[in-house]
């Protein structure tokens, strides 16, 4: 393609300074994260002076009951939120893809994508107000027992995870071959059999990818959780945010590194699942 340019002694697409800038950007993008990970293995209490390699901070984080509780809570919320959001997102994707356009379709799109557009802080205060009202009402009708529990956080997380689960499922559906389903129908499979035996297996990679993305998004949330949680309901990110006000030790780095590790593993799996076969 760039033949005639090459003939004249330079590549047209090369702009001086661009490659250097790009390399600097990539280094700047990763250096802070690598530094953070490196200091989680620091033997000294300092975040600046290297005191040799050690796994002490991991051991300490492991022994810290607050970290353990917060981790468990994060995983529970993310699991429920991922399962709920992926289930409803799969149904919505089936309802809005590969069919005749119908009235209200745009409305459904806007609703599903709404969490991507509204600033998190706005959703956070809105949920704080609404859940507060619900709790007052529940107490007034003698059901105060329902004012605690993780249900509120799970509902909030499930809602903002829906668009993230929906997008990969929809993409998979759009790229799917219709002929297999037509063939199944021609062979007298009932619509349910066709769905169960043909559509669902073909759609599975999209569903798994959507669930993983939802899980990661839920695991990362700090703003909405910070406003919705009741006392003693810290997740890992809100626990870390609270700690950042205090004296910092590499324990935070150790916790961060574990969370990063989990995210990177899930994301790599996600990319492998959604990669187009070439």
């Amino acid at each position, binding site marked *: 393609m760039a033949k005639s340019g090459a003939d004249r002694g330079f590549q047209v697409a090369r702009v001086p300074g661009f490659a250097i800038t790009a390399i600097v950007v990539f280094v700047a993008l990763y250096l802070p994260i690598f530094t953070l990970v490196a200091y989680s293995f620091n033997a000294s209490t300092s*975040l600046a002076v290297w005191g040799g390699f050690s796994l002490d901070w991991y051991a300490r984080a492991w022994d810290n009951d607050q970290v353990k509780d917060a981790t468990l809570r994060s995983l529970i919320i993310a699991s429920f939120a991922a399962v709920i959001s992926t289930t*409803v997102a799969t149904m919505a994707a089936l309802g809005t893809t590969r069919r005749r356009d119908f009235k209200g379709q745009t409305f459904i799109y806007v609703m599903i994508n709404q969490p991507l557009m509204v*600033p998190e802080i706005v*959703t956070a*205060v*809105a949920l704080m107000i609404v859940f507060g009202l619900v709790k007052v009402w529940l107490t007034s009708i003698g059901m105060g027992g329902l004012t605690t529990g993780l249900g509120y956080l799970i*509902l909030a997380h499930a809602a903002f995870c829906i668009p993230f689960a*929906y997008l990969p499922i929809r993409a998979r559906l759009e790229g799917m071959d219709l002929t297999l389903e037509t063939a199944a129908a021609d062979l007298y499979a009932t619509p349910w059999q066709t769905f169960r035996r043909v559509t669902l297996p073909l759609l599975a990679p999209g569903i798994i990818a959507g669930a993983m993305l939802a899980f990661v998004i839920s695991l990362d949330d700090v703003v909405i959780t910070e*406003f919705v949680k009741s006392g003693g309901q810290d997740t890992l990110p809100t626990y*870390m945010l609270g700690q950042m006000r205090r004296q910092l030790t590499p324990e935070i780095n150790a916790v961060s590194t574990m969370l990063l590790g989990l995210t990177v593993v899930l994301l790599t799996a996600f990319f492998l699942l959604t990669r187009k076969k070439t």
Partner: protein
Amino acid sequence: MPSQAEARAITASARNGWLLSTPALVILSLAAVGPLLIVVIYSFLTPGQHGNVVWEFSTDGWTGILWSKDIFTDEWMLADAHLTIFWRSVSLSLMTTLFAFVVGFPTAWFIATRPPKERALWLFLITIPFWTNLLIRTYAINEVLRKEGLMNTVLMGLGLTDAPIDVLYTQTAIFIGMTYVYLPLMVLPLFAAIDRFDMKLLEAAYDLYASRWQVLRRIILPIVKPGIIAGSILVFVPSLGAYVTPRVLGGGKQMMIGNFIELQFLQGKNWPLGAALSMLLLLIVMAALLVYVRYANRGSSHG
């Protein structure tokens, strides 16, 4: 005229579409869209003594965005402190967007001009930070900017400065942090636009003796404009509503709108003002997104 069978098929399609979407719509109404409507109502109520609201209509929440009541004379006066916060939010977000473009464009160009096999890897490297925890990335920047952190170690090691630069908990720190965390949002749409760009146009321009600067300004920039607008809005919108980054890098002194909203609900005890501020932020974001949608549609209809 559609035949009867066709009309039936259309109705069935719509019915199934709505039925299948209902569970998602219910969850979103309960925990995303519905609550926003209640915030609108709250912005028109009277603040309670210790936070919360009294159910009496009042527009003071909205007035309070720009003016505050003098505690002694009860007169409304322009609230300088609020203006400072708005100006800081807008100027930091604009600077972040601009700088993200300045470094993001060469990066996107670089990725788009790699051989196809390498390209996926570079894209993956840009995408990974985007999906990893925002709090952790902000905290990583906090560590780098500390007095005894990586930045000062390098600067002093190179002899560029004698004493450590105390940049943490300043507006500069927030600017650096926001650029860092939102940069992938600029690079990805830019890449998408440049990737579609036909490099033959460059050859044609050079054959006609255009200078590099002319090529950049007259050919490349106009064609990738939709990508520039998309990237700018994707960076500007979350910057304006940022909460975590100013909190972790601004240290509570350098508030932005997001932190100011929190303050009204958790310490300031003026919920109607907080609600009005939230709605204002939402309106600005929606306006920005409308601009984006209009540009995106125009771009596609003209090929």
